[in-house]
């Protein structure tokens, strides 16, 4: 059964865009995300809000195994966004990841090209919890000194993968992390080290 999308498409999408923009401008500082939609499981409201706000017919979307297993999720995204679904992470503009523990290595996603680094994949991960003031240490543009962020669950060897991602700058993927009611950004310009 097809589920409704945003109740107020213009303002809900703008609000979501603003939250994501602020999150990426201030890495490690979680923003509030009032997710409107009530999507079919296992899609979370935050993943759905970001997908509805950011994807369209020009942005191939890659779904992780959990999401790809549900035909309702595919139908929901296809109806509300018109975005083509792709099975190749290297061709995706956005990747929706419901189960971060089984996220493929970041290097398997599109890294962009030196002339067009913006053609890389933006990963949207659904975490259980995001907390600031503890956990990983972040340094980089948009951060005054250092910021700390605790994520759970963390993908395998996440910090090492992020270091590798950072080393390839200006190429690399950007990460949008969501938890119930919150969103945080981890752009490729941020250097992440363990606590």
């Amino acid at each position, binding site marked *: *059964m*097809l*589920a*409704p*999308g945003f109740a107020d*498409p213009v303002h809900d999408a703008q609000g979501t865009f603003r939250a994501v923009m602020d999150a990426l401008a201030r890495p490690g500082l979680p923003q509030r995300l009032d997710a409107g939609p009530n999507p079919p499981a296992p899609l979370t409201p935050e993943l759905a809000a970001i997908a509805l706000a950011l994807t369209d017919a020009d942005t191939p979307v890659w779904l992780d195994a959990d999401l790809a297993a549900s035909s309702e999720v595919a139908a929901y995204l296809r*109806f509300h966004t018109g975005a083509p679904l792709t099975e190749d992470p290297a061709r995706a503009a956005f990747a929706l990841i419901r189960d971060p523990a089984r996220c493929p290595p970041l290097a398997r996603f599109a890294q962009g090209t030196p002339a067009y680094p913006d053609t890389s994949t933006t990963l949207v991960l659904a975490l259980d919890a995001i907390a600031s003031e503890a956990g990983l240490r972040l340094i980089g543009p948009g951060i005054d000194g250092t910021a700390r962020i605790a994520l759970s669950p963390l993908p395998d060897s996440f910090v090492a993968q992020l270091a590798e991602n950072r080393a390839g700058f200006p190429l690399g993927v950007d990460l949008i992390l969501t938890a119930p009611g919150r969103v945080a950004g981890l752009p490729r310009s941020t250097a992440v080290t363990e606590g």
Partner: protein
Amino acid sequence: MATSPLHPGPEEIAARQVVMALCADASRDDLDAALQALAAPNAEDLRPPETGLVMATGRIGGDGRPFNLGEVSVTRAAIRLPDGATGFAYHLGRDRTKARLAATLDALWQDPARRARVEAALRSAAEKAEAARRQAARRTAATRVEFLTVARGED
């Protein structure tokens, strides 16, 4: 191939197109009356009705090369009934209420048990649309000019 909601047969598609074309011709009041007669359940918006522009394509003489006639405003609606049936409608113009009514009728029509009742409820709208079309044809016919070649007697 078996006819299912996701893979309707060509006859079903044609019949649905006829009903939707009828809804497009009908006025908002006609559609409202038809829905009242059906005692339709409340529909939920899948996507609130929205108005946009669509490029209308024409063909010279009806079968010539296609050309872009111009942009027309189109309103689309997508609704869901409490039983999960979904209905869609695209209408010329900016009448969101009308597009939504037509989408509701579309959802009701897709249920084979309700189909006959939906068509019966739309019958008066169909008759009105047919009468309007006949009258327009009569008016146009009255202005018809017969061109004929006048022999000039040069031969």
